[in-house]
């Protein structure tokens, strides 16, 4: 139960890192990545995954 970032589409804006309630998003190399061990799909925090809701590029923060 986690989301991942499609690296080739990520603009590295960092909005997902900013919004993630679990600090699951980190900057690595050229783009952001989601630590699947920390990601809860925002369950218990918010109705929808925050990274996907804020990401400006459609289809970039998607379920693993």
């Amino acid at each position, binding site marked *: 139960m986690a989301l991942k970032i499609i690296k080739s589409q990520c603009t*590295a*804006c960092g909005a997902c890192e900013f919004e993630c309630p679990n600090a699951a998003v980190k900057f690595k190399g050229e783009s952001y990545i989601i630590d699947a061990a920390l990601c809860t799909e925002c369950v218990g925090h918010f*109705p929808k995954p925050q990274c996907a*809701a*804020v990401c400006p*590029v459609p289809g970039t923060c998607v379920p693993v």
Partner: protein
Amino acid sequence: MTAGLVTLGSLKVASREDLSQSITGPEATGCKATACGSSGGPADMDPATWARVKDHPCYSEEAHHYFARMHVAVAPACNIQCNYCNRKYDCSNESRPGVVSERLTPEQAARKVIAVANEIPQLSVLGIAGPGDAAYDWRKTKETFRLVSAQIPDIKLCLSSNGLALPDHIDDLVAMNIDHVTLTINMLDPEIGAKIYPWIFHDHQRLTGIEASRVLHERQMLSLDLLVARGILVKVNSVLIPGINDAHLLEVNREVKRRGAFLHNIMPLISDPDHGTHFGLTGQRGPTAAELKAVQDACEGGAKLMRHCRQCRADAVGLLGQDRGQEFTMDLVPEQVAYDPAARAAWRDWVAHEREDRRAAVAEAEAATRAEVAPQEQPLLVAVCTQGGGRINQHFGHASEFRIYEVDARGVRFVTHRRADNYCTGGAGDENRLAQVIRTLEGVPVILCARIGDCPRDDLAAAGIEAIDTHAHDYIEPAVAAVYRARKAAPAATRTA
């Protein structure tokens, strides 16, 4: 090195005369050093506001001749999607679309600002604008401001925002002594907003459609009200999108003025399929120069417009149209930089004298014009080639933009700048430069420059444009007034003779 910029090296040895020499050029003659009490700003701005913006190159046309501002891109995250934006590029807010700025961490940005301040003493303003929203990505914005103002306490800080997240940080903004904020407001009516903003992210939710624009509008008005109430100057930027918000911008203009914005700047939508924006891809066009001017003119009675705004690229560094940003990319900035305040202090001292001198010269020239030219004479438009310093100090062949002044018996007024590169004119890339310049100068019968070759002079003359280089290195307004008197005062002179 260009004449408009004085480096640290020259400042170390500089007397005021050396500085005059380096900015006015080798052929400059001595200034008429007449002191003058006129330190007022433009007639349409209250003195308290003028006092706060007179050294701000983005807000004061006059200041743009003496002071430089720089932007750093430290806050790339954004909380709204605009149809004129593609996140791969910079935000259209305060920068040119289709341009990518160097993204920096707050620590890198602070180092860069200090390196620039040491090298370009004209630096007076640090702005954080796009890409991203400086108020949404607030932690990075705040940290950058904190690091810079710890070393350069007198630098003015400003930021640009869409206003959605800004109310959350109003206390921080006041505490950090930020006195200028630019809000981009393109609509009051959510139905119109829905055509500009596909979604916003607010309060942990993505909102779409009219709901998104309704919330955005409410937050924008709240931002404006809070900023005004807390004494922070607010400029409003609006992007003119033909067929969507062109007529509506007059309402925006009235409303933002009523709420206390001190400037309202109408910027053209710049739309190109290559930018990959929604508007670019769907064929939404930008306004023509005439459409832009029509809206700007209609708004003028409302908020004061910022005619000299050139939509600098976000990481531009320098005076007027110059961009020395490439000299300060991060790989060229040293690991350790210590701020040296001496250069900026010397520059400010010199500028204070120079501006007084210029004002005195302008007052003298305007008085002469009033005395010699009948008030009912038609105004004249004059183009000027300058690199700053308020003087005609650029070779015609080096000018890629022209400052347009209007002169009549009442005085000399800056009207706008016109660019003669492909950016604003939409001209073909291989178009002959001179043909492009002639097209850019449509309706402007005179151009003043520091020098011009015989061939372009003849070609301009054939197009009905008189090129004059006998006012090289003079102050702009007195020279423009002298040209006007030469053209218009003849009948009066005949009468009195």
